[in-house]
């Protein structure tokens, strides 16, 4: 089931070998730095430095941004990023820290910015020297993104920005923000414009970054307040009033449905070999049940618990097999039908799995991460709470069901 089964072009075949060799020689060794579970959860500068160094080296070697033109700092290759990604993943390297930059900002800037700005911004984005964040959601604009109210008022050849963005991961480390702003109150969609904004240099001078605390007690997200921040008009992407269309480029790439492949490197975190996939997965419920007691017997011997664990394992296997099937021409009708289910399904399976885990733990699920006696180090009650981040963020489950009903089943729009 490896990507190598696909037929490489000569360029890809050569590049694959180059990547393999380079990674073998240059992949970061094990580190004492405790790596986070995802790039969005980078908490310390120690973590950031380690991961930035890795991205820079991979970029300098030509493994990041390889399909972008040379003029903007890319590698000028044809459809080679997926080759590099596959090799990173096979080698289980750590991930790149500039995840929003690579996945969302780069394609958006590439398709919508002035040539001069592309050349100025993209090389340091690819290298990871500049971390990027995203300013879309606001307190009053969650599911309904087009209702954003953070306002950009024209002032000579500059814009004056005032407002409030929330859920901006990595903002405390970010140099740049891609941001959706309102430039007219008269039109909902056509009143939006899209900018890139230097935020690190403006901290304390019109930009305030504050951590948002999640219900778990963790930080990681931020809110960003803009008070009369002046931004040059050259930071605007595409025309005034075309912000919604630009945002669609960003969102398409966020969902993996855009034209450009996002550079992705592995996902090694500080764990033992082979544990990655299942550590929070349904299969790990079996071990949990074997070490948990319910009503005087081992939870793994309770048929009701067994039944429920099997349900989650089956859903998880079904999810995995559906991803596999989504690439088999003969077994799909609508090519978007499975990919558009991805987010909904993954987030709800994770939620139900975590919820079931707390029931398996029983009374011990009351114990949280700081308790030395908590089963699985308190991971499950935390995962349960964090699962709501996934069913809410980036399109709630309710919005996902609308999208599926409308785009795949072609039912009339609900809104």
């Amino acid at each position, binding site marked *: 089931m490896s990507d190598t089964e696909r037929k490489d072009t000569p360029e890809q075949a050569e590049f694959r070998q180059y990547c393999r060799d380079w990674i073998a020689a240059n992949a970061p060794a094990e580190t004492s730095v405790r790596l986070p579970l995802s790039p969005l959860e980078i908490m310390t500068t120690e973590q950031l430095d380690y991961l930035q160094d890795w991205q820079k080296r991979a970029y300098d070697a030509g493994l990041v941004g390889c399909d972008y033109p040379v003029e903007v700092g890319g590698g000028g290759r044809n459809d080679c990023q997926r080759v590099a990604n596959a090799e990173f993943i096979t080698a289980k390297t750590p991930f790149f820290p500039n995840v929003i930059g690579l996945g969302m900002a780069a394609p958006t800037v590439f398709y919508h910015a002035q040539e001069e700005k592309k050349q100025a911004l993209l090389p340091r984005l690819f290298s990871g020297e500049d971390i990027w964040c995203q300013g879309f959601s606001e307190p009053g604009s969650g599911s309904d993104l087009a209702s954003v109210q953070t306002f950009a008022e024209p002032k000579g050849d500059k814009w004056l920005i005032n407002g409030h963005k929330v859920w901006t991961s990595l903002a405390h480390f970010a140099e740049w923000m891609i941001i959706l702003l309102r430039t007219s109150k008269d039109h909902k969609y056509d009143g939006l414009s899209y900018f890139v904004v230097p935020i690190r240099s403006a901290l304390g001078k019109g930009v305030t970054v504050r951590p948002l605390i999640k219900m778990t007690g963790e930080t990681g997200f931020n809110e960003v307040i803009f008070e009369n921040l002046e931004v040059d008009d050259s930071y605007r992407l595409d025309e005034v009033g075309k912000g919604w269309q630009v945002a669609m480029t960003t969102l398409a790439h966020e969902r993996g449905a855009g034209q450009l492949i996002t550079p992705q490197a592995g996902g090694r975190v500080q764990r033992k070999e082979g544990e990655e996939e299942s550590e929070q997965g349904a299969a790990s419920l079996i071990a949990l049940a074997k070490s948990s007691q319910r009503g005087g017997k081992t939870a793994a011997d309770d048929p009701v618990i*067994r039944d429920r664990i099997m349900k989650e394992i*089956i859903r998880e*296997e079904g999810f995995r097999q559906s991803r596999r099937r989504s690439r088999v021409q003969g077994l799909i009708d609508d090519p978007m039908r499975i990919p558009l289910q991805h987010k909904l399904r993954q987030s709800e399976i994770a939620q139900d799995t975590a919820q079931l885990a707390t029931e398996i733990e029983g009374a011990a699920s009351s114990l949280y991460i700081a308790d030395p006696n908590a089963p699985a180090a308190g991971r499950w009650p935390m995962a349960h709470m964090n699962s709501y981040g996934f069913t809410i963020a980036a399109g709630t489950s309710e919005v996902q069901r609308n999208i599926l*009903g409308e785009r795949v089943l072609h039912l009339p729009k609900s809104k």
Partner: protein
Amino acid sequence: MTQPVNFGFGEEETMLRDSARKFFADNLPVDQLHAVIAADSDPHRDLEAGWKPELWQQMVELGWTMLAVPERAGGLGMSAAAVAGLCEEAGRAAFPSPLLPTINCSYLLAACGGAAADAALEAIVGGAAASPALIDSRGSWEEADTDVAVVDGKLSGTAYYVQDAQKVDYLLVKARQGDALALYWVSIDAAGIEVHADAIVDLSRDQARVSFDGVEAVEVSGDAAAAVATAMPAIWTMVSADMVGAAEWELQTTVEYARTRTQFEHQIGFFQAVKHPLVDAMVEIDQSKSLVYNAACAIDSEPENATRFAHMAKASASDMAVFASSRAVQFHGGIGFTWECFVHIYFKRQNHNQVLWGDGAWHRARLANILIGVAA
């Protein structure tokens, strides 16, 4: 062993599936199906099997009943993935025929090995339809369970829940023979056999109790338990494929209705109370379909995992089929509750499929024994 990325579902399998879809759609569209199997609504009607034997003859001629027969017995020896594609289409058409039981017999006989079993397979290749008669009065086919015994070399007893018994030529009978369990191949017209048709809910199938009174039959396996264990993943997978096809029909038909039926100045699919459960049905169908082809592919190329993956497929498909059928009736509203609306044909077939060869909870319990170990 590992599975091919594409489930072994390539061009040949796609062509077979597409031609099956066309055959069923051309020859028995749902209005004609309704006329064939639902002409009489009286629950106390005569227990005649409603089907089109001439279409079955064409299917035989197309070679569909020899797909799962090994080449050594003159069959096509095609992959389980290919057979699943055919079964999915039969389910989509709610097609009345002995296809599924005949395919099930192919897998059972192929697992028997030996000349007698191969001779039986050759009968299938020759156009015979057959049905497994494995199940006892309690609905179980497991271990030593059977209510048929071999007495003085002849079969005596009763087999229950025999599918499409009124449409087949042969039965494959599980019988207790002293301490052993054997499989026997016997013509349904053999002396001493009586077929007592059940009055069932499902209009697209028939089912029977079959009694044996000193019936001469051919032993095709002296180790029924082994043959059944080997064939069971395929039997579970194929009925699951049938459910996936039937559910997709239910989904598409209900979606179409939701796009045309207007209430409160909106097409009813506008309302999230209709739209979102239809999406949920789609997601469940896709999960089951993926698990079906994964199980089929395991049968073909990863047999050590076939049982666990087939349990997953049938567990998923059983729950999915009940849910998709329920929403199809509900969202058709008043008309969906009538005999004239075609949905009830699928509702009934799916609720039958659900309990055939183990329902969702049953398969999950077996899967747990594999993945967790038998409970203390």
